[in-house]
């Protein structure tokens, strides 16, 4: 039986940055709403190679308080662009992330699927462009800090 009143299910933003393994079930459960038929989720996972070089693991660090502020801005922007969006959750893992595990998850619930999918796409694009988080790829013999091509001030070809 459903007891939640729609009007009580106020839109909420869930932001988390820490070293714990991310969970698709957990983030889906956070955003699911009885008045919404759609949840879209994007999961960014770590890849085992970069331009043919074998990646052993990834290490992430963040300017945590500012990263939370920037993610909060993304949530605000999503709500301006897709007013029907209900809940938004953006989780980013920090520290060491083994290959094939999730580094980031963005989940959005909405009454209809188009908004949820568009909002998730916007969310991950915006995160890559503006949230102060850094990834170091560790290869067998060395390591390298990466640059998102979306980074709004980067001038390289990456």
């Amino acid at each position, binding site marked *: 039986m459903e007891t939640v009143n729609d009007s009580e299910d106020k839109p909420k933003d869930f932001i988390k940055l820490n070293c714990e393994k991310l969970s698709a079930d957990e983030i889906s459960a956070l955003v699911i709403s009885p008045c919404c038929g759609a949840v879209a989720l994007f999961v960014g996972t770590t890849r085992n190679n970069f331009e043919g070089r074998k990646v052993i693991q990834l290490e992430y660090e963040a300017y945590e308080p500012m990263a939370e502020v920037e993610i909060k801005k993304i949530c605000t922007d999503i709500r301006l662009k897709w007013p029907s969006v209900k809940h938004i959750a953006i989780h*980013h893992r920090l520290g060491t992330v083994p290959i094939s595990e999730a580094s980031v998850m963005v989940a959005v619930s909405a009454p209809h699927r188009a908004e949820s999918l568009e909002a998730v796409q916007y969310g*991950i694009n915006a995160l890559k462009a503006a949230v102060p988080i850094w990834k170091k790829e560790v290869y067998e013999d060395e390591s390298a800090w*990466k640059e998102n091509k979306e980074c709004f001030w980067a001038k390289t070809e990456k």
Partner: protein
Amino acid sequence: MLPVVVLYFARSAELAGVRTETISVPQRITSLQLWEEIVKKHSGLEDIRDQVVFAVRQEYVLLGDQLLVLHSGDEIAVIPPISGG
């Protein structure tokens, strides 16, 4: 002159050899002058001059002629190109 806290991340932390320090700077300074003050202390950062921006009180500021009006204890971060996601 007033004290501000400078934070370094990722490649900038490796080049500076430090993650946090307090430096003294004029209350009014352009972001480019601030960068030059920082490079005086950590010459290795010269290499990434074209790639970094600041975050002043957690707001992005490009290196250039923009005048910063700082307060004692302000947090200034050196932000190399990001790679979250």
